């Protein structure tokens, strides 16, 4: 079993829909949780960064962490075609420096 599990998709939604992307993990030591967005033929770029449990909002994006369930989510409101990309979750323990463990990525397609 992989340490971080993520549904590969593809997830296809109409423009304006609310999107929910999720990851589950098995290592209870993970404390820092990130979401990266990767457009086709590009490198990943950091989208959201949260520490421990709770919610964090940035514009149309909300990151949610439930450490008791070992489950993290990224919500995208009013989704746009420009949100079409692969979304990777990543996480690390407090003492891991910058050594991240990534999920496999979920491919999202937002149709106009």
């Amino acid at each position, binding site marked *: 079993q992989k340490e971080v599990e993520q549904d*590969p998709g593809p997830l296809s939604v109409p423009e304006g829909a609310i999107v929910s992307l999720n990851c589950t993990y098995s290592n209870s030591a993970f404390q*820092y949780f990130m979401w990266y967005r990767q457009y086709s033929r*590009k*490198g990943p*770029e950091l989208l959201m960064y949260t520490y421990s449990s709770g919610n964090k909002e940035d514009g149309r994006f909300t990151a949610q962490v439930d450490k008791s369930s070992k489950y993290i989510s990224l919500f995208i409101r009013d989704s746009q075609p420009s949100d079409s990309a692969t979304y990777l979750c*990543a996480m690390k323990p407090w003492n891991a420096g910058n050594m991240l463990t990534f999920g496999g990525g979920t491919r999202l397609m937002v149709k106009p």
Partner: protein
Amino acid sequence: DVKVTQSSRYLVKRTGEKVFLECVQDMDHENMFWYRQDPGLGLRLIYFSYDVKMKEKGDIPEGYSVSREKKERFSLILESASTNQTSMYLCASSLGGVNTEAFFGQGTRLTVV
């Protein structure tokens, strides 16, 4: 803006060849990383370096080596390329410390035939 530049976008090499993938960052970052990305497997860490001439193995170092002679440059070496090393290779860099963002290059799509 931070820029992480990988020397090639696409490479085709033959089995048994020695392959060099080069990465340069322009923001004086201490940490540099090499990942490979395969469908469904996400990014897996091959090697990382936290200082010049310093390196640490990641999750999948077998068949690879690295070199960091200058702070801005981190090279990944495939000593004898094999077909199972066909993949997307991503370089990243970050400042030292815990809560720092990793910036990625555009990736090198390597095909070993």
